[in-house]
Each structure stands twice: as structure tokens, then as C-alpha cells.
């Protein structure tokens, strides 16, 4: 523990350089921009920036990318509150009470509640990482291939069991991601796999291309279909109101605490920020004595989803750093970046690159403070951006995605793949297939497969290796429970209406 604080101070020394502070500001601003714009969000914003970080040193690169993530999380809330348009899927729940409060003449109060609770949620996530990360990593140092495979299995199972989407659809999305990850040269045998006759696919399918299509093009199609009508409320920030609202925030400590706990849990087990914000909103509504006020501008209805959203987004980096299993789609993209920079996400990172790890953790404290200040200062500017008609923004965003996909490896095939992923992204979103597990599987598919094949080599082809040893067995059993969980819940769910009907 004392050691952690020492390392954290060391991390602050790294993160507080003028160069890194500049990158924080830049990252947060770009993040707010992609968070505000429809069709661009945290996952594809970070992917777009990724090819541009290859020349940077890893600490600077991760500070830039993670601050973009914080910025995007904040930016998504701005449009939710002022325009009733969630800029990010994870800020959908913020529209329920945020927009009514802003519409009724209190936009500053709504924004301050959102940003304040978001910052506290993020703080909870970072503190959790500070306390737990090195401990988890130390425990994971003893992991062999079977344990790692079991951890991956647990991550995938928790998507199916707790992700909130229809379980079979989640399973299909996951398996497609794995198949896409397998395309190209097999790292173990050197065989060329699943290219389906397209020779250029030997290089594999980059997750950046997939993210650009799934999230970028897919979301543009969704947005144009819903025909966004901007009904803006005033976007002026009154500073006195900011102060007054911040002083009221401690009075909501119980909601804050519970929401942060929900968020941390959903971030570490890869449920993701979107599921966390909905779950936290649902809980707050059910448990609140002012139950009837929800949906009409109730402060707790803003605090609950925002605190959970940000604590989930932040704590999603804990399993990424300590185990090499990202907890959200954006964390998956960042982890892909880590691997491209030549780092090996997982427990060895804490031993080999402590500067990187603790620089990042320290930057998370600072980046979130920078984000709160910047987002409050720039609300009017970004709100003005929303008045640009969508038909003008759409082709520009489309070109950005196209160029982004092309620049990954200067390949036209990638542009066509992006288009294909775009159509899939649209269909999947419309029919509530989850996209995060698809991206996660593309990024860590190879690692999971390697772990499995290594384990098989160790056991000479016997699956029994996954029930030898306490840790492996526990993890595998836990995964199986999570896999069966939706089935059980469905059965209980079916029985409840019947009981209600007989009453």
C-alpha cells in the first residue's frame, strides 16, 4: 500500500510535465468534440487517433488517448442534457432527467450535477485502480496459460450473463469477433486462415477498421434514420449556479456512492459504461423516495447514471492493465494500441514498465480534473457546433472514418471492409446485438486462442487442465454460472408475470 503511494507520486512526477499537460488538454478537447458529434464516439475517436501515436513514446500516447476517452465521456453528457441527444450510448440514461431539468430553465444546474457526479465517479474508479491494480497484477504474475484462458472465458461469459443484451445475440457477436480475429496468419502454426480467397486478408483485419465501421458508419446510419431535430435549450453557463449546485452535491452522497460502486463493478467485469449507467439509473429510481419525480428533472436521475458511467469507464482500465482483459470497447481499442506500441498488457507491465503504468494512473487523476474544467468552459462552443445541420456533418464524419480506415495500412480493402462493418453495425444496433463484445473479441481473440493452445500443449490435449488447481476451477465454474445466469433469469422472469396475473 505505501509502496503504491510512492509509485503514484512518481507517476505524478511523470504526468505533470508541460508536454503531458498539453497532451491532456488536447486529448480532452478532441474527446469532447467526438463525444458531442453524432456518429463519432470514444471507441472510434480513440481508433482514429491511434495511427497518429505510433511515433510517440508510450506514456505520452496513452495520456493522449485516455484523456480523449475522458473528454468523450463528458462530451456525450453535454448533448444529452442540452439537446436530448445522447452523444454516446453510455449517456442515454442522462437524457431522462438531464434534459427535462435543462428545459425547465436550469441547464447550468443539470450540467453541474452531471459533471460533478461524473468527476466523483471517475475519482472512485481511479482510487480503485490505485489501490487494487498492482495487487491484482501481483496475483496474476503467478498465472499460467490455463489461468489466463479462464480469465478470458470469465470476461466473455460476463458479457453474456450481465451485458443486458439478448444472450444468444451476444454469443453470436462474440463468436464473430473471434472468427474475425483469426483471419490472417496463425501465429502458432504459420498457416493462413479464413481469407476466403482474398489474398490481401493475409495481413488480418485490423480492429481499427472494424471500430470505424461498426461505431462510426453504423451510428451515422442510425442517426440519419432517427432524423435528429435539434431543440436546443440555452447553453449559457452561470458560474454562481455552478458553485451552488456543487455545494448541494454532498447531500446526495448515498446515491453517489452506490452509483460509483455499480460503475466500478460493471467496469471491472466487462459490463461496460452503458450497462452501468442504465443499471444505476434503474436502481436509483426504484429505491428513491421521490420515485415519481424521475423523468421530470430529478437530480438523483442525473447523478446516478453519470457517476456510474464514469466510474465504469475509468475502472475498465483496471483489468486491461493488470490482466490484459479490457472492460469496455474503448479500453479494448487502447489495449490494441498498447500492443502496437510494443507493450504487453498484463501483470508483467507493472514489473517491466512501472513508469508507464503509474504515469497513466496519475494522469487519470489529472485528466479528469482537466476535463471538468474544460468541459464547463467550452459548453457554449460545442453547443454551437450542434446547430450545424446534420446533413453537413454526415459527409464530413464519413470522410474522417474513411481516411482513418485507409491510413491504418494504406489499403483500399480496409475502406471496403469498413463499409461492410458499417452495415453490420447498423443492423446489430437496430436489433440490439451488442457491439462491445465483438470489438473485444477482435482485439484479444488471438491472445485467448494462444492461451488455450498453450494450455492444451501443457496437458497434451486434455481439457482436464481447466479443472486442475483451485484458481482455474473457480474461474471456470464462475464463467459457467454466468453463462447459465440469463437462462435462469429468463425462467424466473417468465414465472413472475404468471404469479402477477393470478393475483
Amino acid at each position, binding site marked *: 500500500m505505501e509502496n503504491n503511494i510512492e509509485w503514484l507520486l512518481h507517476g505524478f512526477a511523470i504526468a505533470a510535465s508541460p508536454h503531458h499537460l498539453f497532451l491532456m488538454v488536447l486529448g480532452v478537447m478532441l474527446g469532447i468534440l467526438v463525444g458531442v458529434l453524432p456518429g463519432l464516439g470514444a471507441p472510434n475517436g480513440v481508433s482514429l487517433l491511434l*495511427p*497518429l501515436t505510433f511515433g510517440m513514446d508510450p506514456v505520452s500516447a496513452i495520456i493522449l488517448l485516455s484523456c480523449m476517452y475522458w473528454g468523450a465521456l463528458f462530451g456525450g453528457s453535454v448533448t444529452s442534457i442540452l439537446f436530448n441527444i445522447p452523444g454516446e450510448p453510455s449517456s442515454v440514461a442522462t437524457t431522462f432527467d438531464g434534459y427535462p431539468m435543462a428545459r425547465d430553465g436550469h441547464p447550468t444546474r443539470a450540467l453541474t450535477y452531471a459533471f460533478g457526479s461524473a468527476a466523483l465517479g471517475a475519482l472512485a474508479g481511479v482510487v480503485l485502480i490505485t489501490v487494487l491494480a498492482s495487487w491484482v497484477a501481483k496475483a496474476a504474475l503467478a498465472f499460467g496459460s490455463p489461468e489466463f484462458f479462464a480469465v478470458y472465458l470469465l470476461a466473455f461469459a460476463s458479457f453474456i450473463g450481465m451485458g443486458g443484451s439478448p444472450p*444468444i*445475440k451476444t*454469443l*453470436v457477436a462474440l*463468436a*464473430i469477433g*473471434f*472468427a474475425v480475429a*483469426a483471419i490472417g496468419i*496463425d501465429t*502458432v*502454426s504459420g*498457416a493462413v*486462415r*479464413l481469407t*476466403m480467397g482474398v489474398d490481401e486478408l493475409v495481413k488480418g483485419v485490423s480492429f481499427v477498421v472494424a471500430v470505424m465501421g461498426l461505431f462510426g*458508419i453504423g451510428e*451515422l*446510419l442510425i442517426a*440519419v*434514420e432517427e*432524423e435528429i431535430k435539434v431543440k436546443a435549450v440555452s447553453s449559457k453557463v452561470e458560474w454562481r449556479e455552478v458553485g451552488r449546485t456543487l455545494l448541494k452535491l454532498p447531500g446526495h452522497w448515498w446515491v453517489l456512492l452506490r452509483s460509483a460502486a455499480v460503475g466500478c463493478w460493471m467496469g471491472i467485469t466487462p459490463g461496460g459504461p452503458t450497462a452501468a449507467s442504465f443499471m444505476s439509473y434503474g436502481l436509483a429510481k426504484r429505491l428513491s423516495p421521490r420515485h415519481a419525480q424521475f423523468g421530470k428533472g430529478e437530480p438523483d436521475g442525473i447523478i446516478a447514471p453519470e457517476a456510474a458511467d464514469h466510474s465504469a469507464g475509468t475502472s475498465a482500465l483496471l483489468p486491461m492493465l493488470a490482466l490484459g482483459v479490457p472492460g469496455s470497447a474503448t479500453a479494448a481499442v487502447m489495449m490494441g494500441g498498447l500492443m502496437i506500441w510494443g507493450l504487453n498488457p498484463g501483470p508483467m507491465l507493472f514489473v517491466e514498465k512501472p513508469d508507464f503504468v503509474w504515469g497513466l494512473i496519475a494522469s487519470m487523476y489529472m485528466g479528469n480534473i482537466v476535463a471538468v474544467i474544460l468541459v464547463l468552459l467550452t459548453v457554449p462552443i460545442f453547443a454551437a457546433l450542434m446547430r450545424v*445541420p446534420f*446533413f*453537413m456533418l*454526415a*459527409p*464530413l464524419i*464519413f*470522410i474522417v472514418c*474513411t*481516411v482513418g480506415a*485507409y*491510413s491504418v495500412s*494504406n489499403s*483500399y480493402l480496409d*475502406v*471496403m471492409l469498413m*463499409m461492410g462493418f458499417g452495415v*453490420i453495425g447498423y*443492423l*446489430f444496433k*437496430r*436489433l440490439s*446485438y451488442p457491439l462491445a463484445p465483438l470489438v473485444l473479441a477482435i482485439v484479444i481473440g488471438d491472445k485467448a*486462442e494462444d492461451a*488455450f*493452445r498453450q494450455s*492444451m*500443449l501443457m496437458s497434451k*490435449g486434455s481439457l482436464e487442465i481447466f479443472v486442475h488447481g483451485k484458481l482455474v476451477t473457480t474461474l471456470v465454474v464462475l464463467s459457467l454460472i454466468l453463462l447459465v445466469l440469463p437462462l435462469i433469469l429468463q425462467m424466473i422472469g417468465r414465472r413472475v408475470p404468471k404469479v402477477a396475473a393470478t393475483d
Partner: protein
Amino acid sequence: MISRRALEMLTAALTGTFGVAVCVSSLELGIAWGAAGVSAGTLPFCTGTIVTAGSLFNLVSGARMAPGETAIDADNARRLAGLFLPAATYIAAIPLLGMYVSSVLYVFGVLHLQHRASLLRGLVTATAVLLALYFLFEITFRVYMPRGWLGNALGF
């Protein structure tokens, strides 16, 4: 126009086709325990099987939905096509006209011709895109954009 039921079934058919293709293609690689451990096709075959089986399930549960609910009505379809068709044309034009010319034509076409924005607005936005692409990517980040058949013919 397109019912939720049809959309569910279409998507399941798409994912199912992919699943079968993955299975067939990994069978060729071998899917058993080989001399060097687990053969390269084993896990892809498993994922292919899961995709196929899951798609079948989704197909059946889609088919059992009531046909009434509309997923995409005529208005939605018109707006979707209004975004998708110009975008697909733009992508298709890149090998022919190169990234710069097709981007400029795409922006100008969508703004001025499709959405009746003023000529000035169309021209200014298109020029801004051209300059931004060139200075941001070609100069700052040294990404060489494809010139296309046209650019090569003109010697760029």
C-alpha cells in the same frame, strides 16, 4: 416497409452465412489434435459452429415474431438511402478519382445538389475538406492518399 421480423431474419441469415463460411474454411486447415498441438482450424471451427447455431436460433425466433411491427418505414428508408448511396458512390469512386477529388465531389454533391445548400456553402466546405485532408494527413502525418486512376493519368 421492412418489418422487424424480416430484418431479424435477414441479419440472422447474414451471420449464419458467415458462420458456415468460417466452418468450411477451417475444416480445410484441420480441426483436431495434430502433431504440433491443437490444429490451426480448431478454434475457428468452434467459433464458426457457435455463430451458425446462434444464427439458426435467431432466425427461428425472428420467424416466430409477429409480422406487424415495422422496423424501417418508407421515410426511414429514404433517409438511409440518402446517406448510404452517396457514401457508397464516394467509396467506389476512390480507385478511379483518388481520395482528394472524390472527397471534394462527395461533399459538394451532398451539400449543394442533394440538400440544396447554397453554391457558396458547398464550395467553401468542399475546399475546406480538401485543404484539411492535405495538410493534416499528407503533410503532418505523412499518410500518402491514393491518387486513383485519374491522378496517375495526370501524373500526380
